[in-house]
């Protein structure tokens, strides 16, 4: 499947959200004038964001810019000071985890020696909705198997989670995030600590899920990676600095406001790369950045 980075992927199938008929036509994610943080500490303010079905948005910014806080506000894990969040037309109360939002955490934040099989780890995603009995029902297990098959993990259901490769671990967490019929997928730094092949694998998979109608938000520090592969970027630095296609928002001025540093944007053969023009690196850095960018481009981006 080829996805033009300049165009949002066209959904193949419209997913029907629960609740009213209008819910299925509502935006999967709508954020209006959102401000919040931790207790009285405000980490993010005045964020407006709309993500349509099939859209993938890369959230970028320096450390402390509020990327993780945005995800935590969207999942009810931080204090909302003002504004509103709607998921599939349903207004979400402060400090409440929305029903149809799935979170994929950073791989490095997980105890991979934890005694769970792949199927058990995926089923845990149903913990909040499943009944009080201490086991999962046959239909819940069938749903987990279906997702594992869909994500290419068939045959690995009974393996311990520590036996999975980096790409398989990401797939397992995508299955766990989706098992609650998610409309919105949030990926926290999926490129952190994984090799180039795994990045390409994850992005290919996320592209397929978006094409099936999910709205996807990806936070990352890897500016060149998202600039090369995602159709839309959201620049954050305590508030939204810019939001749009890479060609429009990836400018020296936006980068200066976001990173408070002078960075150079290079357009070469229809591709964009950002380089830090350090005096000693000069053109060698430029060349290596463009080469790295080409090497990391996953197959589905064409």
């Amino acid at each position, binding site marked *: 499947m080829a996805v033009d980075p300049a165009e949002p992927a066209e959904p193949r199938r419209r997913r029907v959200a629960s609740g009213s008929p209008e819910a299925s036509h509502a935006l999967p994610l709508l954020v209006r004038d959102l401000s919040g943080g931790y207790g009285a500490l405000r980490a993010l303010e005045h964020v407006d964001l709309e993500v349509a079905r099939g859209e993938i948005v890369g959230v970028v910014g320096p450390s402390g810019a509020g990327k993780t806080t945005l995800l935590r506000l969207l*999942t009810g894990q931080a204090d909302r000071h003002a504004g509103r969040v709607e998921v599939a037309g349903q207004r979400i109360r402060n400090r409440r985890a929305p029903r149809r939002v799935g979170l994929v955490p950073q791989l490095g934040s997980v105890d991979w020696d934890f005694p769970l099989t792949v199927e058990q780890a995926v089923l845990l995603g149903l913990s*909040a909705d499943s009944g009080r009995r201490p086991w999962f029902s046959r239909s819940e297990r069938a749903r987990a198997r279906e997702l594992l098959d869909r994500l290419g993990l068939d045959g690995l259901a009974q393996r311990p989670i520590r036996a999975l490769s980096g790409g398989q671990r990401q797939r397992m967490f995508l299955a766990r995030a989706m098992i609650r019929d998610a409309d919105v997928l949030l990926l926290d730094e999926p490129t952190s600590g994984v090799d180039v092949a795994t990045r390409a694998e994850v992005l290919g998979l996320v592209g397929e899920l978006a094409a099936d109608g999910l709205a996807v938000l990806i936070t990352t520090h890897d500016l060149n990676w998202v600039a090369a592969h995602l159709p839309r970027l959201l620049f954050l630095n305590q508030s939204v600095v810019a939001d749009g296609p890479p060609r429009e928002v990836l400018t020296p001025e936006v980068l200066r406001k976001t990173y408070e540093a002078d960075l150079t944007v290079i357009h070469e053969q229809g591709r964009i790369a950002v380089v830090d023009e350090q005096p000693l690196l000069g053109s060698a850095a430029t060349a290596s950045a463009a080469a790295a960018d080409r090497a990391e481009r996953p197959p589905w981006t064409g």
Partner: protein
Amino acid sequence: MDWLIEPLGFGFFQRALLAGVLVGGLCGSLSVFVVQRRMSSIGHGLAHSVLGGVGIALALGVHEYLGAAAATAVAAVLIDRVGRRRGLHVDAAIWIVTTALFALGVVVVSRVEGVGVSTESLLFGDVLGVGTGDLALIGAVSAGFAILLLARWKALVFTTFDHDVAAAMGVAAGRHEALLNLATAAVVVASVRVLGVLLIASAVVLPAALARLLTASFGRLLALATVVGSAAAVVGLYASFHLNAPSGSTIVLTGTTAFAVVLVVVAVRTGLARRRGIAEAHRAP
């Protein structure tokens, strides 16, 4: 077989066996959560703080279990407060708070006359002196913990595995973490009579550590750790009876010996499997 049957003729040994099996299983099942949450120090610390509570309770003439429960609650709050200070970490807070309560207990127990409780039995356990009241408390805590596990199993496992994602996916992770902390305090208080404050730490860590060597499934880990805890108590109590040694010590030594044996067996098996793999790789064309 006399060595097996003879002790059962004594009422105190029957009560001790019942208390040992319950406390062993209780600590064993709790150990799974203590070890997987990497909170081994908190079990050790709360057990130490119990001595302070018992000492003050004896001095005031109230029931020692009341003092023990109050001490674990005070310790938990103080650990939380001290651990939040910038530059300090929770492990430092645990040892500052709980050793202070432990030292307070030693001073008070040694100064209060005619309390009928020896420092030695508090430190190392006195399972042979278990009474009906002790059994009732152990039974109530065991039943409460079993109900908690059955009713909230999935949420407890998810919270233990990944607190933040569990919370983001609708699990009341904070509440379940608090329930586990409360359960830890209750288990520590209920186990003091059998194991003593110095030896509880081993009972809430060792069964899960041993079981983890044998299984990679959380459910089987719980079952195995519970059985290991109870079995160590039974073997340890017989050893205590026949060797005339403190029961808490023999229970802990039984568990540690079993752990060491399993560790060696698993290491040898892993080594042999690795050798076989290398040999097969060399034989392959």
